[in-house]
């Protein structure tokens, strides 16, 4: 089942074409690595898919909802986490959970059962009433990810979720991503770490607003005759960087 379908999706800002007629599909439960140099149009593409920005032309559905006419329904079906962890540092763990559960319209009972599950799963029960500020970075990041999944979205968008995190925590974070995908939730992840790209089911590489390559990492390496995704990325993205 296709959870994201995009057909010639385009966004212009004046004369500048930020996203140039991209077409791709994402299957439910898939991990899609969304790669591209800064300014390649990744952020604009994500904004269109999350209902923040209306496309200039083209079509797209996310979780079965149309990006033009049903952005509010899309917002309810997706989760989002950015590099900056998005938790309030001056609120406690429990307060953050209650707040995010609340803005997604969960009932008080839903919030408290899911909170207890979540804290047990992350082994964070003892830190329930600690302020986020006092937690180590790795915990914050896992917590932010779990909070983004609190309303049980069908897709979760992760915008450079592992920026500035140590390798061990990164590895643990990817274990969480796998678990999430195994539960049938689609993971749409952007990253600048090419080793992480190797972990994805499929990757897409954006250059200059267009998708230059999309497919399984192994297939792409074979067809471009390169040893790693890193090499592939450099080869495709270099013309822009120069």
């Amino acid at each position, binding site marked *: 089942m296709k959870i994201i379908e995009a057909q010639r999706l385009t966004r212009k800002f004046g004369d500048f074409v930020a996203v140039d007629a991209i077409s791709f599909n994402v299957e439910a439960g898939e991990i899609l690595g969304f790669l591209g140099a800064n300014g390649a149009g990744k952020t604009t593409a994500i904004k269109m898919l999350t*209902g923040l920005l209306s496309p200039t032309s083209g079509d797209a559905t996310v979780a079965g909802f149309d990006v033009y006419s049903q952005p509010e329904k899309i917002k309810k079906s997706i989760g*989002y986490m950015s590099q900056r962890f998005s938790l*309030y540092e001056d609120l406690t763990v429990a307060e953050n959970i209650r707040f995010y559960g609340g803005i997604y319209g969960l009932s008080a009972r839903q919030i408290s059962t899911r909170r207890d599950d979540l804290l047990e799963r992350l082994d964070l029960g003892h830190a329930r009433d600690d302020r986020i500020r006092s937690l180590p970075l790795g915990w914050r990041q896992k917590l932010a990810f779990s909070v983004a999944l609190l309303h049980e979205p069908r897709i979760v968008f992760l915008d450079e979720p592992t920026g500035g995190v140590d390798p061990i925590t990164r590895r643990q974070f990817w274990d969480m991503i796998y678990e999430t995908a195994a539960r049938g939730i689609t993971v749409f992840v952007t990253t600048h770490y090419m080793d992480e790209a190797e972990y994805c089911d499929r990757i897409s590489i954006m250059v200059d607003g267009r998708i230059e390559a999309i497919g399984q990492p192994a297939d792409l390496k074979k067809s471009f005759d390169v040893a790693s995704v890193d090499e592939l990325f450099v080869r495709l993205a270099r013309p822009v960087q120069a």
Partner: protein
Amino acid sequence: MKSFRGFVIKEFFHIFRDYRTLLILFGMPVIQLVLFGYAVRNEIQDINIAFVDSTNDHVTRQIKERIRASSYFNVIGQLPSERDIREAFQRGLIKEAVVFEPGFASRLAHDGVADIRIVTDATDPNTAKSMQAYTASIIAHYQRDHLGSTALRIVTESRMRFNPELKSVNLFVPGLIALILMLVCALMTSITITREKELGTMEVLLVSPLKPIHIIVGKVLPYFVLSFVNVVTILVLARLVFDVPVRGSVPLLLAECLLFILCALSLGILISSRSNSQQTATMVSLAGLLLPTVILSGFIFPISSMPVALQLFTHIVPAKWFLIIIRDIMLKGIGIEYFWKETLVLAGMTLILMTASARSFKTRLE
């Protein structure tokens, strides 16, 4: 609606857990009121004064006695001649000298005219002007009481209406309300909104099902409530500690304050939608809002004595209109029929600012 309530609760957590925010919200109004009430004064008291009086006759003695008796002046003594005044000023011994011409009483008796010269240290021109006026008034009183029938002179008398004791705190409290509201509403809201942008939480809020209007209203509602609490606190404190009156209608006064709060909040939202960091928001608020509120609103400096270009500019300072309104209510005790035009101007500005900030916030999303 439930998610909105959760949002407002979160906002109150932010405020009550940040001691700096708390200090600005609740400490500053009190500190400012006390500062303006006690320290910043226009009225004069215990001004050191000396006389130059070579004759020392019965008329000059009576005038000197009157000056000595007033609480404004503190008589240091006599100076031998007018030439010594300069040095006494320079050494800071006195701020004012009153010079009687030689043979004062006999000149007055023969010619019907005698000269008194009032010399003031005008390094601080406002105080100098006040001292001069006070002295002149004391002499005028003496003249009326003792010489009124014999000397045919026109005695001018000035009377200060609405603030007969010339208490500067009466003048400052309305300005202070304007200043605090600008600070709390515009500065604090622009900071709290840009803080979410800096932290990256704004992105998450925008991706959530919350509508942008809920985000904005949810962020400013706590400040709306708290700034209203501030207004009441200032009014009560001003009443209890400094005896500042509210001569007009209190509900009307509070309604006008609410209008001004809305205006300032819209300004705060506008600033925050245009700036991406707390620092920028702070700088813009301080330079663009607080300075005009202090300097160009008529709070401290009278607008009528500004150059014409600057006077025109004051028309776009919301605090100017607000000050006219609340001074009318508090000090003159008059009703809306006298300042409906100013109220309309303020309401119009608020409407324009609200529309602009709503539009600006929307375009930022696209």
